[in-house]
């Protein structure tokens, strides 16, 4: 290849590196995408190759969250594409700027029964913001530019670009493929001044206000704006989803500690709720938790402003920008008494859970397990929880001073179990100097535990703590409630030595059955320097509040 010519595959890599500053691509190799993989070598992009394309999509999704830049995954045609679909749907429902580059059968072989010939575009369109096929190697930079803009502009979301091998292997004159100047727009939509003033009046007269920040806070990365706003208004706040950690959990006005129970205990008595970048969906019981409050909703997508609950005032725009616009209109207030009341009530509502955390138990209670993990790593770490009941205990018990320091990706709208290990791997790649711990249910561990091979090959020493109740706990306990203990179906898993599986893949593993073994085992896992699995046998009879809510959501049908 002469200097003036370049292959389509190399052109893809060059664009990613030089125009979008992409350092990592999450992938699994395949013949159709070989030219791009080679281009990544040429342009010094780190390829994290995984064992299932679902994980490539989930890791790229997580990379977006941890770095606040679009994550890129590269998958091959056919099964590579279909395997990635779960991860793409998850990103779609969580509004994450995931850029999916995908192989395709050759255009030359359309309708001939080519290997992996299928209509990928029609399949992926409903679950992406934008999906297209590039047919001309000279337009590769243009298509990639559109893909990144679509992923990040307005409300973010996944995009899908299909690249046939005809164009990836084709060599063209570099000068014939113009690179668009990189254009990344932050939305400049501004609410009406009268609406901003109305919102400020409500905030200024509030006696028991609460601010809840969701993923829109995280995507806006508006920690400074949020800090100025809460410090001036004195409003206590809870940050959830990808908003968690934009301000640290140990901020004096933070209500994030205590997880769902903590927030749910006080929301019904709040007189004003400021919801920022937060959808009122199933996870938030469609806003029913605070039926009598005046509600100010801030969202980048105007269709969310009255969804499931009519906002008293709806403000369209980027979370940080709207908070900045509100700042001069709101008064300096002190809600210390309300904050203290909220926290004391929260403690009273969590009586049993707080007791369980402090007491050694046999068998081990999952709340106690989380407490023991926290005692080792503290809040200068990144935590991920994955599972059903496991997600509840992780959200409730973990805290971190870091942005996205506590994530429960399985608690999103897709309820996508198996996200824990991919998210933990991405967190460790993004923050190699910090401990990264994933608390996995034994059921959810099964989906992507083969990725410990990825962790070993790429030297990504995460620590996975398996909350092993030998069952699909949330389903089992729901069935016990609805069907009866003697009719549970497909919800038992049995005792398995997951730690030996990880050892077999080259990691570190230990089995723990006693409370006093938890901390020493975690310390040995850290000392090993390897990706580790601590398989902790926990009380199979424990049911979390999340299970009750899950059951109740069907109970009224």
């Amino acid at each position, binding site marked *: 290849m002469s200097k003036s010519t370049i292959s389509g595959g190399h052109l893809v890599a060059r664009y990613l590196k030089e125009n979008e500053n992409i350092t990592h691509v999450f992938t699994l190799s395949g013949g159709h995408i070989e030219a791009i993989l080679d281009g990544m070598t040429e342009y010094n992009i780190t390829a994290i190759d995984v064992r299932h394309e679902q994980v490539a999509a989930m890791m790229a999704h997580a990379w977006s969250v941890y770095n606040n830049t679009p994550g890129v995954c590269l998958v091959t045609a056919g099964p590579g594409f279909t395997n990635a679909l779960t991860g793409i749907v998850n990103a779609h429902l969580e509004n994450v700027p995931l850029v999916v580059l995908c192989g395709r059968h050759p255009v030359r072989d359309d309708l001939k029964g080519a290997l992996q010939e299928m209509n990928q575009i029609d399949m992926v369109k409903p679950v992406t913001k934008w999906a297209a096929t590039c047919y001309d190697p000279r337009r590769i930079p243009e298509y990639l530019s559109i893909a990144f803009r679509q992923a990040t502009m307005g409300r973010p979301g996944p995009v899908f670009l299909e690249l046939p091998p005809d164009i990836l292997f084709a060599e063209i004159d570099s000068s014939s493929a113009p690179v668009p100047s990189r254009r990344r727009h932050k939305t400049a939509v501004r609410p009406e001044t009268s609406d901003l003033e109305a919102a400020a009046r409500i905030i200024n007269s509030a006696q028991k206000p609460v601010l809840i920040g969701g993923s829109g806070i995280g995507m806006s990365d508006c920690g400074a704006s949020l800090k100025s706003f809460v410090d001036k208004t004195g409003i206590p706040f809870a940050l959830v989803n990808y908003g968690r950690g934009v301000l640290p959990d140990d901020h004096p006005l933070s209500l994030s500690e205590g997880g769902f*129970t903590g927030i*749910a*205990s006080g929301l019904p008595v709040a007189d004003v709720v400021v919801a920022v970048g937060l959808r009122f969906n199933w996870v938030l019981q469609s806003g029913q938790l605070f039926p009598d409050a005046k509600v100010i909703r801030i969202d980048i997508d105007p269709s969310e402003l009255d969804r499931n609950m009519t906002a008293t005032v709806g403000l369209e725009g980027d979370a940080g920008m709207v908070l900045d616009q509100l700042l001069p209109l709101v008064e300096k207030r002190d809600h210390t008494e309300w904050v203290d009341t909220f926290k004391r009530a929260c403690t009273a509502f969590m009586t049993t859970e707080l007791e369980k955390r402090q007491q050694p138990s046999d068998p081990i209670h999952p709340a106690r397990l989380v407490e023991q993990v926290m005692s080792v790593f503290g809040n200068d770490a990144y935590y991920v929880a994955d599972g059903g009941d496991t997600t509840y205990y992780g959200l409730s018990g973990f805290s971190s001073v870091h942005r996205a320091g506590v994530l429960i990706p399985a608690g999103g709208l897709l309820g996508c179990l198996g996200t824990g290990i991919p998210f933990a791997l991405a967190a460790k790649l993004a923050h190699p100097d910090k401990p990264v711990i994933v608390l996995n249910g034994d059921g959810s561990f099964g989906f992507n535990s083969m990725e410990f091979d990825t962790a070993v090959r790429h030297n990504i020493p995460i620590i996975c703590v398996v909350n092993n109740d030998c069952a699909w706990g949330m389903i089992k306990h729901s069935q016990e409630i609805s069907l009866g203990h003697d009719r549970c179906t497909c919800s038992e898993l049995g005792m398995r030595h997951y730690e030996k599986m990880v050892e077999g893949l080259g990691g570190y593993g230990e089995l723990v059955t006693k409370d006093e073994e938890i901390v020493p085992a975690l310390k040995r896992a850290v000392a090993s320097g390897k990706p580790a699995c601590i398989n902790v046998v926990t009380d199979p009879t424990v049911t979390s509040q999340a299970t009750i809510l899950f059951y109740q959501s069907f109970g009224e049908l």
Partner: protein
Amino acid sequence: MRLKILLFGLYGLLWFSSKTNTSFKKFIRKARVRMMIRTEDGRYARLFIFDMGKITTVTDPDQPFDAALTWKDPKTAFSVLLKQNMEAIFYAAADGNLKIEGMPVYAQWFDAAMGHIM
């Protein structure tokens, strides 16, 4: 004594509603919930047992429960319960007069159930 009467009266209301109130009957028809209301010293206690539409009760404070409102004293319990709202419960908890034991989500379910008959 007033708390004892209030709790017994509450049971009577729940039982009667389970026979006559259509929306309440629908709300409780699939529920298996054991809701305890008691004082810290155990002198006053009533467990409301919801079992797929049927409601029974016992007065033993040591019975297993899904959620318990454990009051510091019967006087506060009486006055707060009479107000019949979550805000009063919240402030009682904040003031140290009430602990919510077990799973608070069941207490919220109980509150929602009461909403069908009050």
